[in-house]
């Protein structure tokens, strides 16, 4: 099957493609399985030294003394970097020029503002010597009491939540809506601090050559990292070359360059030799971001038919004492359920922690588990089936803004997932279902949603006289399959088979592909690739249609099609010729085209753009022990065009598993006195293991979206966690009759 893509730039020249939509396996899979894929920490430039961070064990105070002598006396230690000898920076690490610039701890002074903050860097000939050198520093502190927990400080109303969103928003009169309601619920839920915990720790291998920098480090945003480093060191961005071909996961924690990575660059500058710095697992619990805890209260009113009359969602959260990132949890109530009155608000405390950052659906995941739990409570209060209740309150336009949706196949998601799951036979009352072994069985559901976001990206396409093509963009593959999906888009964009395209990404000397985040990378960089392909094909078509020697001569008005390395007349496909012939006749070795990907402001204004989904969960609970197992998960998602169903499905799986993790497993346990995280390791910071996910299914619901972008791509990376977490929580209630009020759900909450 070939499908014709509409071109937004050059409507006269269409291409037909067949790579998009194919379930190709990962092009980098073989490299990864065989260990040949080179991650940042695998690099060893000649003369390289090892740098190890010394980090603070207190949450607040100052470093009174460091035994630098002892560290330096240790065999193999070359240098110790402290605030006293740290090379000068061109910019203040505490400056904040724009909301996306986060303050970094780069040894600017002796102050400590969170546990695991860097307080020195030891550089040595071996990792072991540097590690022992860091221990020998034996810091002494002046300690101040730590501010810990959501009640640990006075609360404030942040100026903005998430990325510049208002902390307080409303439409209609919530109080009046509640008053007029026939049924009301009010419910509070708590979510814990969580840490990204990518498998690959933040690592950097860096070599200075004069004023140019060569860096291997995992990055979700190469150009942003390049710009930040350039600003800090006062050098031109083009003098900084960052390679990030593979990331061992990022989840948002590698979106911005972190303090420890910059310290690696400083260490290399100090010693004048290449340096490698790799965070230890426990050192990832502080300087590289996390998800802040929340306490959320929802109030809902319903009329006699179960229609919402009011929806009020308040979230209390936390940020660090020195920077601003506020988890926009309550904003989850803006998009899903129709209500004449909606109010969302946030307040927050400032705690002695590292600054929270974007993590796995920031705000959407946290807000979703509370909203979906409350919807479940509301449905029950109205005596309605939770699916029926959701359909009764189905939003035909975006509730908060009144904008039409660019596309919304949520009804179809509900239908397909419910049918596959077998939802219809579910009793409304909880604690009625037992399996043959006596386990309490519960079924719960949640609605998934995530905004279809686009950033800015560029790509460069080349067609060569030998008939092959090149597509370049500095895109980042976090493990999600970007190497493959982008190559598919590139192949179609160039009208070539995928094997004829040399796709290049993961390096800062390629065109800026924007950030791999916000589930917007495929849409953004994908559109840049698509447009670059269109541009170069347009040039090729101009050459052919203007050349009397070409069978395409004069076809300009009718347009041409690009497919399989040939251009065809649109009105007569028997007339065509190969790219190679066109270029050779024109005496050109190659031609190039450039393309951009960016949101379209007009459609941005006109439409609400979101991906949607429905997730159904079955849990079993041991009636005596309260141990929970999610035995079945079925999700159906509609997120615009599917570039590669295999990769998309695995993104949904991953997201859904993170949803299980949110509901049942993840929690950073913080000592209430010291503020130190007590389970900063993967043995005790639980995420699901295979045995926790025995059966998972993700259905891809067809959705055409003519407004999001020309390719019709929304985003699939984060949506899976939303909806799922709430579905699991609701299934726990349905099994046990106990409503989870804090997450993760604990055994003691269900012991009864």
């Amino acid at each position, binding site marked *: 099957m070939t499908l014709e893509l509409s071109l937004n730039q050059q409507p006269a020249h269409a291409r037909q493609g067949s790579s998009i939509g194919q379930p190709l396996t990962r092009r980098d899979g073989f490299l990864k399985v065989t260990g040949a894929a080179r991650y940042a920490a695998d690099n060893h430039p000649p003369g390289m030294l090892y740098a190890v961070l010394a980090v603070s*064990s*207190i949450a607040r105070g100052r470093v009174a003394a460091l035994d630098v002598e002892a560290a330096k006396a240790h*065999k193999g230690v070359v240098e110790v970097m402290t605030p006293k000898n740290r090379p000068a920076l061109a910019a203040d690490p505490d400056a904040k020029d724009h909301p996306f610039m986060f303050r970094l701890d780069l040894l600017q002074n002796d102050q400590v503002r969170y546990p695991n903050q860097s307080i020195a860097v030891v550089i040595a000939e071996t990792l*072991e010597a540097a*590690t*022992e050198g860091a*221990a020998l520093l034996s810091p002494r502190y002046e300690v101040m009491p730590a501010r810990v927990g959501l009640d640990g400080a006075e609360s404030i109303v942040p100026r903005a939540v998430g990325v510049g969103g208002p902390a307080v928003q409303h439409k209609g009169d919530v109080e009046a809506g509640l008053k007029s309601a026939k049924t009301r619920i009010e419910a509070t839920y708590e979510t814990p601090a969580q840490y990204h915990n990518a498998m690959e720790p933040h690592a950097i291998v860096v070599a200075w050559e004069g004023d140019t920098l060569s860096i291997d480090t995992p990055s979700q945003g190469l150009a942003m990292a390049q710009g930040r480093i350039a600003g800090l060191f006062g050098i031109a961005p083009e003098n900084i070359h960052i390679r990030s071909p593979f990331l061992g996961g990022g989840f948002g924690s590698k979106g911005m360059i972190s303090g420890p990575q910059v310290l690696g660059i400083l260490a290399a500058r100090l010693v004048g030799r290449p340096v490698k710095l790799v965070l230890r697992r426990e050192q990832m619990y502080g300087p590289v971001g996390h998800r802040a805890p929340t306490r959320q209260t929802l109030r809902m009113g319903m009329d006699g038919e179960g229609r919402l009359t009011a929806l009020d969602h308040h979230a209390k959260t936390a940020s660090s004492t020195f920077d601003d990132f506020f988890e926009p949890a309550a904003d989850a109530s803006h998009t899903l359920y129709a209500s004449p009155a909606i109010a969302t608000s946030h307040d927050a405390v400032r705690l002695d922690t590292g600054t929270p950052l974007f993590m796995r659906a920031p705000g959407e995941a946290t807000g979703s588990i509370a909203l979906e739990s409350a919807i479940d409570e509301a449905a029950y209060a109205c005596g309605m089936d939770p699916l029926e209740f959701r359909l009764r309150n189905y939003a035909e336009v975006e509730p908060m803004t009144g904008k039409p949706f660019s596309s919304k196949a949520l009804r179809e998601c509900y239908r397909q997932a419910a049918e596959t799951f077998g939802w219809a036979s579910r009793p409304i009352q909880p604690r009625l279902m037992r*399996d*043959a*072994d006596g*386990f309490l069985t519960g079924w719960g559901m949640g609605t998934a949603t995530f905004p279809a976001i686009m950033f800015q990206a560029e790509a460069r396409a080349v067609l060569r006289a030998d008939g092959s093509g090149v597509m370049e963009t500095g895109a980042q593959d976090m493990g999600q399959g970007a190497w493959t999906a982008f190559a598919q888009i590139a192949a179609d964009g160039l009208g070539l088979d995928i094997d004829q395209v040399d796709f290049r990404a993961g390096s800062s000397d390629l065109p800026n592909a924007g950030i791999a985040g916000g589930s917007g990378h495929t849409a953004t960089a994908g559109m840049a690739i698509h447009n670059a392909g269109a541009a170069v094909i347009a040039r090729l078509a101009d050459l052919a249609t203007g050349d009397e020697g070409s069978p395409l001569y004069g076809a300009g008005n009718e347009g041409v099609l690009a497919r399989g390395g040939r251009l065809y007349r649109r009105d007569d496909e028997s007339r065509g010729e190969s790219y190679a012939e066109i270029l050779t006749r024109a005496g050109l070795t190659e031609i190039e085209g450039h393309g951009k990907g960016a949101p379209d402001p007009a459609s941005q204004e006109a439409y609400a753009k979101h991906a949607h989904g429905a997730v159904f969960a079955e849990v*079993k609970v*041991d009636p*005596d*022990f*309260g*141990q929970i*197992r999610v*035995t079945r998960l079925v999700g159906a998602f509609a997120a615009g065009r599917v570039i590669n169903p295999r990769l998309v499905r695995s993104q949904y799986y991953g997201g859904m598993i993170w949803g299980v993790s949110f509901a*049942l*497993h993840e929690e950073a*346990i*913080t*000592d*209430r*006195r*010291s503020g*130190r995280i*007590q*389970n900063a390791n993967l*043995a*005790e910071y*639980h995420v*699901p*293991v*295979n*045995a*926790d996910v*025995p059966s998972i299914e993700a259905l891809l619901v067809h959705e055409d979206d003519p407004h999001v972008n020309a390719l019709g791509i929304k985003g699939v990376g984060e949506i899976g966690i939303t909806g799922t977490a709430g579905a699991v929580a609701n299934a726990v209630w349905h099994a046990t009759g106990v409503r989870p009020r804090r997450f993760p759900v*604990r*055994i*003691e909450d269900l*012991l009864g």
Partner: protein
Amino acid sequence: MRDFDYIRPATIPDAIAAAAEPGSAYLAGGTNLLDLMKGGITSPERIVDISRLPELNRIERLDDGGLRIGALVRNADLAYDPAFAKSYPAVAEALLSGASAQLRNAATVGGNLLQRTRCSYFYDTASACNRRQPGTGCDALEGENRLHAVLGWSDACIATHPSDFCVPLVALDAVVEIEGKKGRRHVSLEEFHRLPGETPQRENALEPGDLIVAVRLPAEAASFSANARYLKVRERTSYAFAVVSAAAALVVDGGKIRAARLALGGVAAKPWRARSAEAVLLGADASEATFASAADAALADASPSGDNAFKIELARRIVIRALISALSGTPERLPALPASPFSNIPGARHDA
């Protein structure tokens, strides 16, 4: 990590001589020791690598019907030894419920007995911990302690011993064979681990340089093979330490309990043999009412050491269920999810 000497002795006497020097530590599978060294919790000056001593790697049937398991037998190898699993099913089940497949392939019998507590303050060198640094205090007492001990704890230390393997072993009267400067001696596993009292740093009966060479199971231990189970409640389905666990083994004849063994895990600084409960069981009807009385007896002395009162009730229920499971008979095959409450779910395909 501090520099240390590395010694690989060829014989047991060489190993003991090398380890008799102060500051020495034996290295077996390394799955606990290396983590402790990397975290600066222990800093041995000399590592005596016993992992290649061949005579410690055997499983031997003894003439008296007992079994002798070499200290270096890997946890996985022992659990998957068909004869062993048939005679001591609860031990095999406990082994396979511990850690992950990769860890079980490396972890050894001796190392499992000697693994240190998972108390997070013990691992956090900035915290006060009497067990790690005698006399400094115990930060767990007023801290995050929902998983700490409910039996046998003291104000000096409320930590638990995390081993699964040790729980059925102590129930079955296992004996630790130790070789030291003064020769070979045998200590029952029940006596081997110590409760904290005022000296939580003294965790077991070993003297400096002592090497565990084997663990013995007496002949009688195999007599429970038809009715022996291990049950472990944890916070994810696999790869998690026990919140509370129990090993139960019965000999039942004509509805009466002729012999009974019961031990608890995750509740104390040692694998907890519940002798008072065994006394309730012995000679009684094999009924749920008896099991409930036994559970009450087992937990009679329990008290919360922090935010962990729930563990007492949980332990009661686990004891009852473990006894019911033991009574209903050892399954033909080891369940797909060993020791899990969900082990019986039909169609469970995951093996550990």
